[in-house]
């Protein structure tokens, strides 16, 4: 059964590609495809900063979500000296959403990954930008439905789709709980998203 599933996985890994912000992300997507690890590109935006009026002014949107592993992956190809902002956002995310599992791949990590796979030709292109900051999105509440432009690369059919929905429901529930905890931790009422954030 497992072997048949594997073959089905191989047959159904879609070739649709979102518009990646950086070619390193496209390369990681190819690596994940190769090893048949399902992924979604920037499916969620986590609010990490609010204005005094309660408006979300800063979000963090990890590059990938791996549903089978319940893991977010953030890829930064910036030089180590330039990743302070990214590290701060990651710290904030972990403070606010402790249940969210996220792995940060620094430029060095990704460089070593390419080296391992003999993709040396790409090493020189790991410049990156200071971008990948998340523009304001709607909805911005953690635990919201996946955005319509989220790309699920592997579609395992109806049965797995149902399982996927169930999994997504569990994930949403977890994120809602995380969001509630985050809100409580910073002094806002989760039921009232416009409650001002403390300075």
């Amino acid at each position, binding site marked *: 059964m497992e*072997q048949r*599933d*594997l073959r089905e996985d191989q047959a159904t890994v879609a070739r649709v590609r979102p518009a990646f912000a950086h070619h390193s992300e496209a390369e990681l997507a190819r690596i*994940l495809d190769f*090893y048949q*690890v399902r992924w979604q590109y920037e499916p969620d935006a986590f609010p990490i900063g609010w204005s005094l009026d309660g408006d979300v002014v800063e979000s963090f949107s990890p590059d990938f979500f791996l549903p089978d*592993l319940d893991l977010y992956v953030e890829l930064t190809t910036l030089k180590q000296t330039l990743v302070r902002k990214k590290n701060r956002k990651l710290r904030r995310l972990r403070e606010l959403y402790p249940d969210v599992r996220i792995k940060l791949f620094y430029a060095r990590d990704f460089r070593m*990954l390419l080296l391992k796979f003999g993709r040396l030709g790409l*090493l020189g292109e790991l410049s990156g930008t200071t971008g990948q900051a998340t523009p304001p999105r709607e909805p911005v509440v953690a635990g919201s439905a996946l955005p319509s432009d989220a790309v699920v690369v592997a579609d395992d059919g109806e049965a797995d789709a149902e399982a996927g929905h169930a999994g997504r429901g569990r994930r949403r529930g977890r994120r809602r709980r995380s969001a509630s905890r985050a809100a409580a931790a910073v002094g806002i009422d989760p039921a009232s998203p416009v409650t001002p954030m403390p300075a």
Partner: protein
Amino acid sequence: MSRPVDLVNDIGEVLLTEEQIAARVAELGRKISADYAGRNLTLVSVLKGSLPFMADLMRQIALPLRIDLMEVSSYGGTATESSGLVRIIKDLSASISGEDVLLVEDIIDTGLTLNYLVRYLRGKNPASLKICTLLDKPARRLVEIPVDYQGFEIPDQFVVGYGLDYSERYRNLRFVGVLRPEVYSGPD
């Protein structure tokens, strides 16, 4: 690889000596022997990197065991661009159904290959499936898979030797060493 290989000077640091490896492999062998006493053990080695480890480990296990070999394609290999998916290059030569299988790996870093192999082997209905690795590089882990027998946890450095390669070279070193960055980066 245009740069000539220098088995001595290309190594910046010896991470694990031949003696350290041998001692640890013997320990692992004793533990595996105790854990699998009275069971039908099959060691499955993943080519090519785990060959020296497999050869040494099996001789430290005092049980009547079977061995088998597998090889899977690696991302970035010559077949990657056309197929785009990992595939089994060499499959098991015998059934492992009902057998207690110990998957023997040289190194686990991202866990991507291991994740694929575990899924594949579980589909062959072994009585049990456990994992033994000589080297574990947890800093690089993407897929968390429990490792049952671990030789050494190593830092996040590019290592070669004792089966591990860079561009198919250095596998025959008797120790595990850190490759000098200039070997794979080229001169600045």
